[in-house]
């Protein structure tokens, strides 16, 4: 739906911007392309290099093919806890020395873990190329950790959990959604893990995890910025080339059984003062035709103030203060997640019905031309902004290689989005937005309501 058109002037205006936006943005997308070269060292390490000489800076991203999906029962949160241990010392680098060297030389570093992969990265001035490569290679070679350093990071991670989940209103809502929606343990449990499982992690677990997953043949290194490709390749052979490869880690069964009927639960949140409606539908893996159609659908549904949900729930009916939805771009079967913040005193059941009616419209009516074009222009915009830093490019190249075996997605993804047709959107709406495929979590507030402010 577009907003009700009120005057001839509006029609003219939207037509103009539509006609104007089409060729402009699409040619803009074509201008933003990343040229890169790819190598594989003898030990199986995949190396991707993109030169970009506009600033005297480079970024290195190392993506390991291991995430929380690889965790076993009783050790949830371990992949992320392990990520912290990668900063606590390796063969030639002391506890904390890694980040200190990066900071002291003007750079920035961090690590991040999700369901599918674990990523480490640095950005540095270009004259510190050896430093970044040496540090990443050294911790790929082997760790030097102690019971003490594990206990220390266990504490830090447990505080991270408290900060992001246990001490935040709605913190447990997201955890509850995936917990209820998934039957397969891989995506069912949260990345941050449970306190009990974090407590159970041992130094022996760390050693075993390293030996199974942290090997050059299970990682991708992307280096982007003011570098020379041949020089990077030579240094990669020097620093990473001597690391021994390993047998490939076990494949994880990601199959999710078809959901037979709606799942639903209500949780009480002692820190929240207002309810929240969270809805999830099982969808396909990321980077598939279905995913691209769902991604555009989600833009039409909830991006910007002209989106369907904002227009209907926030502006017209005025039953909510906010509403959004998005399609997860995961390597295994993802979720299409929706979240509505109702105004106080509104009937949650009615809001749910309105939400489902909006989803049903995608099944019955094709989206309009201008909606589709809008969604495509959003996609182009976000494609271009993902190229605004060497770090952003390096992360995309490394992650797409690890998750989808295709680093060139950085260049082709936008074409795939632009190829989506109205019929595709209607098809995926019918395929996924069914009652039986739905999981609903209602968060009810238990905090004392506000007094006078």
């Amino acid at each position: 739906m577009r907003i009700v058109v009120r005057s001839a002037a509006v029609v003219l205006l939207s037509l103009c911007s539509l006609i104007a936006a089409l060729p402009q943005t699409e040619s803009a997308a074509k201008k933003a392309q990343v040229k890169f070269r790819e190598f594989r060292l003898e030990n199986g390490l995949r190396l991707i290099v993109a030169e970009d000489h506009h600033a005297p800076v480079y970024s290195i991203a190392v993506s390991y093919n291991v995430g929380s999906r690889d965790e076993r029962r009783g050790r949830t949160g371990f992949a992320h806890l392990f990520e912290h241990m990668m900063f606590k010392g390796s063969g030639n680098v002391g506890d904390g020395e890694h980040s200190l060297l990066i900071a002291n030389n003007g750079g920035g570093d961090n690590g991040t873990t999700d369901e599918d992969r674990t990523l480490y990265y640095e950005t540095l001035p270009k004259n510190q190329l050896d430093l970044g490569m040496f540090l990443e290679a050294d911790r790929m070679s082997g760790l030097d950790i102690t019971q003490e350093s594990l206990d220390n990071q266990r504490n830090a991670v447990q505080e991270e959990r408290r900060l992001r989940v246990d001490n935040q209103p709605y913190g447990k809502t997201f955890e509850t959604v995936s917990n209820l929606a998934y039957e397969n343990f891989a995506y069912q449990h949260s990345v941050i893990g449970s306190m009990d499982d974090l407590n159970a992690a041992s130094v022996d677990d760390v050693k075993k995890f390293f030996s199974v997953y942290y090997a050059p043949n299970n990682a991708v290194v992307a280096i982007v910025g003011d570098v020379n490709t041949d020089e990077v390749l030579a240094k990669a052979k020097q620093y990473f080339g001597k690391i021994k490869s390993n047998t490939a880690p076990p494949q994880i069964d990601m199959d999710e059984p078809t959901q037979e009927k709606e799942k639903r639960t209500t949780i009480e949140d002692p820190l929240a003062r207002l309810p929240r409606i969270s809805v999830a539908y099982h969808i396909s893996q990321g980077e598939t035709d279905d995913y691209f159609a769902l991604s555009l659908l989600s833009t039409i549904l909830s991006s910007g103030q002209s989106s369907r949900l904002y227009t209907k729930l926030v502006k017209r009916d005025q039953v909510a203060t906010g509403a959004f939805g998005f399609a997860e771009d995961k390597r295994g079967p993802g979720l299409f997640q929706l979240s509505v913040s109702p105004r106080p005193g509104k009937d949650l059941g009615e809001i749910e019905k309105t939400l489902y009616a909006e989803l049903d419209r995608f099944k019955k009516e094709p989206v309009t031309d201008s909606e589709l074009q809008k969604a495509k222009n959003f996609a182009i915009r976000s494609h271009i902004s993902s190229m605004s830093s060497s770090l952003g490019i390096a992360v995309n190249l490394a992650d797409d290689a690890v998750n989808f075996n295709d680093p060139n997605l950085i260049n082709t993804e936008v074409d795939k989005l632009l190829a989506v047709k109205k019929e595709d959107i209607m098809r995926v709406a019918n395929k996924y937005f069914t009652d039986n495929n739905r999981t609903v979590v209602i968060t009810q507030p238990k905090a004392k309501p506000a007094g006078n402010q």
Partner: protein
Amino acid sequence: MLQTIRLRKTNQLFMTTIVTLLVSAMVILPVSAKQAVPGQKTTGKNTKIKGKAPVNKDVLKVTLPKPYEATLKNGLTVLILQDSRSPKLPTVSMQLQIAGAGDLFDPKDIPGLASVTASMLREGTKTRTSDQISAAIDEAGASLGAGAGFGSSAATVTASGISDNIDMLLDYMADITLNPVFPEKELTRQLTNQKIGLQNLRTNAAFLANERFNKAVYGDHPASVRTTSADALAKITPETLKAFHDSHYWAGNAILAIAGDVDIKDVMPKIEKAFGSWEKGTSPDMKWPEPPTPAKSTIYLVDRPNSVQTNLVLGNLGITRTNPDYFPLLVMNRVVGGGATARLFMNLREDKGYTYGAYSGFSSLQYPGTWSASSEVRTDVTDGSMKEFMYELNRIRNEKVPEKELEEVKRSLIASFALSLENPQSALSNAIVSKIYHLPANYWDTYTDKIAAITADDVQRAAKKYVAVDHMTIVAVGDGNKIKDILKKYGDVEVYSIDGQKVGS
């Protein structure tokens, strides 16, 4: 997008540009205790240095690009920085900062009026409805927004998109800035949603800590206000907004800053056309009541039932942006808590495991900003964390920074300058700061030299002045039943509810 990011530490890399962008960039927070903690050796073990990694001894010398600068007849300052990439990234981003239109200029009985005025700009103009504006912006895949901000002297209108959309972006940006009509229907909806939003805001521990800290530090100064209120929202009508807009939005106080793929010759006439009719106006009066000077430290406990962590903030008044102590304070802060390799992080997290992160930071503005240290710690180590905070704050005051640590910190600050060349926004933000605070033309060219010149004595002097351990404001947001008695060890305690009412002492 939602819960996927699990970072090892607060992501400073991604934050750098945002922080420098804001004129009133609050860097992070800090407190004080009554009794100075005796100098027991509780500090973290030093990082273990094996010293085998290859480090290039040289620091890359860089010069930031200078933006094109022009002033329109009506006094509007224009700064343009072109993207240096080749080929250029085909995007443009614009921000219009209007001094005198921020929440520092709210009437006393309507906190938040400037913020509501700004956020209502895109809800309708003389020739376009709210829906029309949203439709046009969304269809282009562009962004258009406006906001003011508590503690800020300026309102800011932002627009960004594909560079081919620049005509349209300028047109809409000027239209919402100059011709807003504040339609009643859109206002009613927005006020209702904001009122509801207040309920959520008051469940957020970080907000509660920040609010209480600023209230205590700033007293009658308008920077003490950090949120609107239900009472204030009830007083806002289209007429109040129109009156505020008519008297606070002037071209002569505004800076339009543009970064990206733009042709200066081509865009200047378009800027003239879009903004030429805007009136010059009068300069805002930047005189405010003096913030209080506390004689002793006070602890403000915000009782947030069911909390599993205590949010601690310890700090005091700092400096204005033009204060010559800026550089000593910058280096001093970096030593104490300005990053994940600084003392607070190394002690409270990497040694004690009390928290996910502990930092310090400072703001420097037209009026005195704050310096503060802060952390979120699990409830049962609130006492231990207070002890370590006091230990570190006393240490930076009482002991000279070892030469090696000082050199490393200075090198870190200087070498990181190269990273800001990646994004034209960084250099542009620096240029905006220069304009606002009338800094000398060579300010950013000599910035790193000034850092290099800081000595251990300078750092200690800054610490004694700006880490006021015996008259600090200390805020703790957490479970009152569990932490009140602990906090009493560190000073007099006043207790507040999450709704901001004083409920005990």
